[in-house]
């Protein structure tokens, strides 16, 4: 079972000015990080339960905590997968999804099964000497709701050339 209380408590502790402005001693900073990390685990379970209920399907959900540095073992390892985009805003949002991947072409389908334009961009990496491919596609998400996009690899370099196929994915 999931629980948001530990993260709640960690966030409450981190209201202290030492945590906000970085004026704590180093060992205290480590402890702040430990509390946040410990709180996030059960919160992920809670989110997974909520998503399973909303979607009507029990999934092994994966949260990419290091997307900001283009690291996501799930999208980099899986051949095909679903991307659930949840919008906490009270209005519809159009948003560009970016995921690190290991293949060079994908078919991305929106919740109605229509193929959306996608690109795999080979980006020069500032931190490493290699290039890191990233999958980009535009997502449209309803107010206070979610959209599910399905991603699968293609051999063709042009994902748009693929005919749309029906899908049962929902957008709520």
């Amino acid at each position, binding site marked *: 079972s999931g629980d948001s209380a530990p993260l709640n408590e960690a966030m409450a502790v981190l209201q202290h000015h030492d945590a906000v402005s970085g004026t704590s001693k180093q060992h205290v900073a480590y402890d702040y990080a430990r509390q946040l990390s410990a709180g996030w685990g059960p919160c992920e379970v809670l989110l997974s339960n909520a998503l399973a209920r909303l979607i009507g399907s029990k999934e092994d959900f994966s949260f990419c905590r290091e997307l900001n540095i283009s690291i996501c073992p799930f999208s980099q390892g899986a051949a095909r997968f679903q991307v*659930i985009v949840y919008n906490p805003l009270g209005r519809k949002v159009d948003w560009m999804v970016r995921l690190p991947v290991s293949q060079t072409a994908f078919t991305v389908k929106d919740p109605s099964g229509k193929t959306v334009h996608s690109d795999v961009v080979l980006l020069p990496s500032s931190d490493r000497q290699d290039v890191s491919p990233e999958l980009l596609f535009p997502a449209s998400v309803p107010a206070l709701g979610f959209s599910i996009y399905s991603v699968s690899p293609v051999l063709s370099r042009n994902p748009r050339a693929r005919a749309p196929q029906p899908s049962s994915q929902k957008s709520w």
Partner: protein
Amino acid sequence: SGVLAIKNEFIRATFDPDTGLLMEIENLDQKLLLPVRQAFFWYNASMGDNESEQASGAYIFRPSRPKPLPVSRWAQIRLVKTALVQEVHQNFSAWCSQVVRLYPGQRHLELEWTVGPIPVGDGWGKEVISRFDTPLETRGLFYTDSNGREILQRRRDYRPTWTLNQTEPVAGNYYPVNSRIYITDENVQLTVLTDRSQGGSSLRDGSLELMVHRRLLRDDGRGVGEPLLESGTGVWVRGRHLVLLDKAQVAAAGHRLLAEKEILAPQVVLATGGGAPYRPG
């Protein structure tokens, strides 16, 4: 060679082909063009001087000189252009880089900076800033949001409720920036939204700066008892600045909506699909 630019329906950003630095932002919708030079600088942290023994530390920001040093006078750049994104990758040094990004339909310019580990082998503590220089005549005024509440007007070398004797020309003009800072000449407004709380200021008319990272070698004697110095090679930080150029009259609508979208950003969760049907209970 030639002009280097990224552009969508609303924004055009031009880069100096000689230096690789951002040179100009154009709002195509409102027909506004503003020369904007953006680069990274660092303040040399004070160890204390004849005026005061106060060193720059975790609590105290006190540069030894009012003028910051450039991280680099030019950036090595790479351009990425596809139908879904246009990016200019700028590499300023081994520890400072940035991606300037535009997506289709986006009304702001996204600057994703990566700074660190800050080298301190030279014995100098460093406080790194991103600075935007424009020709806007701002008459000593700039605006920041304080503690997440209302946006307050800040005036250089001035306090509204007492006569200020300014002894720290840089730090004495720094203010908390929790989500945004802007400058305006009452016709044109340049707004920068942050993804985290930072310190910021406008130390010259038309200029705007935000502190992105710091690494210091002395304790400031204010209670923490140790310098703001990570062990080992040090940490690096990645963050984003969202830049809006608007007519002053309509700028608030733009930055308020964008800030909402930023603070309540969509959350991405991945799954393999094909899971068992789930019913509550």
